[in-house]
């Protein structure tokens, strides 16, 4: 389907809408999939057009997440402020329920920015890979200098000022076995919401993948101890699987909605099905159009992924369809698959190994803490039940 902007009545709903406001970055991460691109930042006109596009994809009252991405989005705070002003302007006429989210390398964070983030109720996710040796090796500053000391200072500030700070830590084949150290380090710093994500562009030797079970086993022991010691920590690899065990598997709505319910806009205005596919913004096969022109939706994401040649060094998982734990696995994450195998519908071995290890680890954590009736664990997962906003029936009930 092609969307002639602003006049289609059949536009799909969106859940996630990401603005990549700049290609610029003050860091030089070893695994950066955004790539280096000496291209202009997003213009105000493009940003406004992008937000208008988000309104076009939604109806009155619809909730969606508006994410700011890059490059480093906090290099352009004025543009982010303008985006929020644009949302307010649109909300006066046609209200939506917009939740803001920013993913940052944390270097620019200071009192003023954090105060603004708190005021605007923006969900903050700081990328920090772990102890100084890991952080400095993987995520040096653009000038080659170590970043750890800056991040420590700014993370501490953020934790002091904001009610909730998420941390995103990337691990690769060389740091997989250091994950327990990373978790302990970040927990010690006061982090209570942690996303652990694999480097999806690295080459993962089979013998390294074989260690995933043991590593996640250690991590699970830490996780359990945190709950027992009244310092619980959300860890995505475990929390998601525990919720899945309660739900009975992923529902259709949980799955990747690239190009249908998830959209990302490059600084140029080019539209992508996921922010992790923007890269240098130089692959027309991945572009769905431009906010200044027309945009097509993806009825079949597979056609998008096969635009790229398979990577011969990353073995795909061919037996997914018969896998007995398929319904509990994120084999459907299109951008991860694309980066690993060149096909959005064909997962690689990294995801396969990590998903299996996570399922085993989560089962152990769930069983242990449930059998002990751990109050922290019960409270922690009860909060995931919250759905907002309240429908009229609930509002009436509460009166």
């Amino acid at each position, binding site marked *: 389907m092609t969307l002639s902007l602003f006049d289609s009545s059949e536009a799909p709903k969106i859940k996630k809408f990401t603005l990549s406001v700049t290609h610029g970055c003050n860091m030089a991460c070893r695994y950066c999939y955004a790539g280096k691109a000496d291209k202009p930042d997003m213009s105000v006109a493009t940003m406004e057009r992008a937000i208008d596009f988000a309104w076009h994809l939604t109806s009155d009252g619809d909730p969606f997440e508006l994410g700011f991405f890059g490059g480093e989005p906090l290099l352009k705070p004025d543009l982010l402020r303008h985006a929020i002003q644009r949302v307010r302007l649109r909300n006066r006429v046609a209200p939506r329920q917009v939740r803001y989210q920013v993913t940052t390398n944390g270097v620019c964070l200071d009192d003023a920015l954090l105060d603004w983030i708190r005021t605007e109720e923006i969900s903050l996710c700081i990328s920090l890979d772990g102890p100084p040796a890991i952080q400095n090796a993987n995520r040096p500053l653009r000038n080659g200098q170590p970043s750890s000391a800056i991040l420590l200072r700014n993370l501490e500030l953020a934790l002091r000022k904001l009610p909730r700070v998420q941390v995103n830590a990337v691990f690769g084949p060389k740091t997989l076995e250091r994950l327990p150290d990373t978790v302990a380090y970040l927990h010690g710093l006061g982090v209570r919401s942690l996303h652990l994500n694999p480097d999806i562009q690295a080459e993962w030797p089979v013998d390294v993948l074989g260690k995933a079970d043991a590593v996640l086993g250690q991590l699970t022991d830490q996780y359990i101890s945190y709950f027992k010691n009244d310092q619980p920590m959300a860890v995505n690899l475990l929390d998601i699987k525990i919720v899945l065990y309660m739900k009975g598997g992923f529902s259709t709505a949980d799955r990747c909605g690239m190009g249908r319910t998830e959209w990302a806009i490059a600084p140029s205005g080019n539209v992508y099905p996921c922010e992790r596919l923007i890269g240098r913004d130089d692959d027309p096969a991945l572009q769905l159009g431009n906010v200044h022109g027309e945009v097509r939706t993806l009825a079949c994401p597979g056609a998008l992924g096969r635009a790229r040649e398979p990577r011969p060094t990353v073995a795909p998982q061919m037996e997914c369809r018969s896998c007995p734990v398929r319904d509990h696995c994120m084999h459907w994450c299109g951008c991860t698959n694309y980066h690993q195998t060149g096909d959005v519908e064909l997962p690689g071995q990294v995801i396969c190994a990590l998903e299996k290890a996570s399922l085993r680890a989560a*089962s152990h954590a769930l069983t242990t803490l449930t059998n002990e009736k751990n109050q922290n*664990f019960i409270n922690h997962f009860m909060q995931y039940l919250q759905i907002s906003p*309240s429908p009229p029936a609930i509002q009436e009930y509460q009166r």
Partner: protein
Amino acid sequence: MKTEEFSVKLPPLGPSIGIPAPPFDKLEKLFLREVLKPHIGPAGGLDLARSTQLQAFKLEPSSGGWPLAHIHIGDGMAVLLTQEMFVTALHFAAKNSQEIEKKIPQVPGNS
């Protein structure tokens, strides 16, 4: 829209419910079968035909400081999900996870 609150005393929930666990988004069926039905007769006005129309969960502290979730089923019906009920759901999930764990294929390179 009229909303009623069904505050029920939870019956003991044991092995009779069995596994596999009900999908979490179908938890209302568990309520109907094991919680509501034994306590509310036909005169109670509970419309079982609407049982799948789960509308929302919302948590808030109760007067006793004991967290409750209001579960709205169908038009204007509400029941309470107590923490005790949630723990039961966790137990289901834990048993189910052990069953699923047995089915996970081995990863190459994992001795």
